[in-house]
């Protein structure tokens, strides 16, 4: 059988540098897929020999995309090492920052990094403003900015943009591709929200700043709590935050969720045929407490068996390097770079060929998928009342089942559903904080005397962050950081194989995909984008020996 290899490198509109190689048969169906992290990043070495209290500041620079998540995870791992208990109000403030980030990240991902895989800008130009307004009503009774005149002005903007030849830069929009299934009106609805989402970002980023202090790099999280900003619990501050979230909720409810529904309905055939489905192993470490409940449940699903969810047990995590460009023990981080084949393709022919800078984390020896989809499935099946109704409503409105979410479009739907229930949860958190203030429980920092803390300690943090499960591990010796390591969400999802040849979630999701036009592999981009890849921190290397090996292949 003749196969053809398609190489996409780099995948655009993601954070970092990812390469995908897929082999398709004569019908354009993907028979094999390899995904490779192409940037070689070493960050953990920076944390060696530092004061553990500064771990957050340094880890926050691992990558600015998730600066807050890494900042918090690093600080949490230090607190874990020293067994420091956080004041409840500090915990809530950290959660409020994190939740605003979830909203910001999910919205940016959907509109700015991913929507153009489904939305054809050039087709939107043919939309009729009146019918567009009508179309939007199908997905919400009060759609966001839905007047004819608004759509007319969006159309004018777009046509100026296209006329000025500025569409050129969007080189990865395969305009006119037959896989673009939306009507001109549907395209216009989403593009209108794309523009609104740019404005949305400027406001939501302020919500993070209210508690984060100096932006864009937040600095208020310190070992033991939150500080550096005076009167953290000032009512005006809370009011400002709530005001922003209320507006954000309008956009989420009346634009983002309806658009996710629109896509789910328009791409129903893809969903029903399982396009983009990975291995069906899902992992969530849970978290974000509220009373005796948590916003996300922890759990592990194997092979789409939703009825038997195992508890998450951290000792089952391992990290391997069989086919990543390292040798020896995973923690040694010794490089073994093997370069490419002569034709410039990845070396993958033998089952011990190495092909990625990304390491291979496993849970109980299995490849896992992590992220909003994993959280939604696990929390829903565990009857989590903070989220259940949101999932039910979405599935009902789109006439889908839970299993359908384990697809490309379903992954996006899960992200939108999650954004919806996070908004609701934020209001609960804020009222809890107000209650604390009322009862004069205003402590936001647990006092400790650093010099009297243990000189030797080990700690870890497991956090659900927008893209999935993030773990930080720290070892402290003589009151300095001796070792630091990170497993980021994308490390799980973009993992290479091991000697056993079992594909990672990205690779598995690409298998069986039908590519209409191999010179325009839009379908591949869609699948990978649906995971919200972020490579900047997924790839880590710790040894300065890497100097000689850091070749970039573009």
């Amino acid at each position, binding site marked *: 059988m003749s196969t053809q290899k398609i190489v996409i490198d*780099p995948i*655009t*509109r993601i*954070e*970092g*540098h990812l390469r995908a190689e897929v082999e398709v048969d004569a019908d354009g169906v993907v028979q094999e897929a390899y995904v490779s992290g192409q*940037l*070689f*990043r*070493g*960050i953990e*070495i*920076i944390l060696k020999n530092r*004061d553990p*209290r*500064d771990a*957050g*500041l*340094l880890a926050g*620079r691992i*990558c*600015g*995309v998730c*600066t807050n998540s890494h900042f918090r995870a690093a600080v949490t791992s230090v607190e874990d090492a020293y067994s420091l208990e956080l004041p409840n109000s500090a915990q809530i403030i950290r959660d409020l920052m994190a939740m605003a980030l979830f909203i*910001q990240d999910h919205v*940016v991902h959907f509109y*700015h*990094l991913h929507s153009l895989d489904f939305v054809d800008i050039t087709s939107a130009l043919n939309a009729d403003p009146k019918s567009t307004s009508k179309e939007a009503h199908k997905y919400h009774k009060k759609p966001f900015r839905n007047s004819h005149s608004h759509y007319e002005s969006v159309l004018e*903007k777009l046509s100026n*943009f296209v006329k000025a030849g*500025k569409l*050129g*830069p*969007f080189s990865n929009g395969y305009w006119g591709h037959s896989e673009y299934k939306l009507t001109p009106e549907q395209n216009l609805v989403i593009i209108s929200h*794309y*523009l609104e989402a*740019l*404005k949305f*970002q*400027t406001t939501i*980023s302020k919500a993070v700043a209210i508690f984060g202090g*100096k932006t*864009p*790099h937040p*600095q208020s999280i*310190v*070992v033991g709590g939150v500080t550096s900003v005076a009167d953290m619990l000032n009512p005006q501050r809370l009011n400002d935050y709530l005001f922003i979230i209320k507006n954000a909720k309008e956009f989420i409810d009346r634009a983002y969720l309806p658009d996710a529904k629109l896509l789910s309905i328009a791409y129903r055939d893809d969903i029903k045929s399982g396009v983009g489905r990975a291995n069906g192993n899902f992992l969530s470490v849970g978290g974000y407490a509220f009373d005796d409940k948590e916003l996300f449940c922890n759990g592990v699903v194997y092979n789409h068996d939703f009825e038997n969810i195992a508890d998450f047990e951290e000792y089952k995590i391992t990290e391997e390097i069989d086919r990543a460009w390292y040798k020896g023990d995973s923690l040694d981080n010794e490089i073994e770079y093997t370069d490419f084949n002569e034709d410039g393709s990845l070396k993958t022919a033998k089952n011990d060929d190495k092909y990625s800078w990304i390491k291979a984390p496993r849970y109980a020896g299995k490849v896992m998928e992590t992220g909003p989809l994993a959280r939604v499935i696990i929390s829903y099946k565990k009857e989590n009342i903070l989220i259940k109704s949101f999932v039910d409503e979405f599935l009902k409105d789109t006439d889908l089942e839970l299993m359908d979410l384990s697809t490309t479009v379903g992954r996006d739907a899960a992200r939108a559903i999650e954004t919806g229930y996070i908004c609701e949860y934020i209001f609960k958190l804020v009222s809890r904080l107000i209650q604390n203030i009322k009862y004069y429980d205003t402590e936001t920092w647990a006092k400790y005397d650093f010099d009297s803390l243990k000189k030797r300690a080990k700690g870890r943090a497991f956090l659900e962050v927008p893209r999935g499960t993030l773990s930080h591990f720290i070892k402290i010796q003589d009151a300095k950081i001796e070792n630091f390591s990170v497993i980021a969400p994308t490390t799980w999802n973009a993992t290479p194989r091991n000697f056993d040849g079992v594909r990672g979630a990205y690779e598995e999701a690409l298998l069986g995909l039908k590519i209409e036009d191999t010179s325009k592999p839009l379908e591949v981009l869609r699948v990978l984008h649906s995971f919200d890849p972020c*490579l*900047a921190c997924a790839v880590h290397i710790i040894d*300065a020996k*890497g*100097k000689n090996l*850091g070749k*970039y292949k*573009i």
Partner: protein
Amino acid sequence: MQKKVALIGSGNAFFKDEGVGLYGAKYIKENYEFSPKIEIVDGGTLGFKLMPLLQEFDEVIIINTASDESKKTGDITVKTTDEFLDGSLIKKTANEVEIAEMLQICSLTEAMGETTVISIVPEDIISVEVALSDNLLLAWDRYIDITLQKIESLGIKITKKEQNFTLKKILDIFANPSIEFNKGF
């Protein structure tokens, strides 16, 4: 109305030359005064998270690295958004990719400020250390001058502060950020 101006230092402080934009912004912040005031931002590796800034300011100057094998290490280019996006972009670091794509995304909105990207060709963006390669040290003064000229061209008066905050001191701060001494950007 007076234009709102932001200078964004962009890059990763821990990968040698990749941090040059950050060091540059910090250097300008510590050594010069501006009238009217401008906002100097630690853009770090924020990538897409810089989009709000692009919309909030009338004029945005981003200083960063741009890998380009056809050019010599230390070569400096000044480009508008359109020029930046039109050229055949060579993007190596995660951050170079993001800055380019962020500009693409923002170019769809009218609210985007006039953006200028001042880039220098790096030599070593792989070593894990807070430092500059020799060739970038040689180009440092020019990199700062070109950035200051750009700021001046926007009608802003620049005065040198009395203190002389050296590059060495700046590298030291980035290498040793500390909560205790409030040493950050």
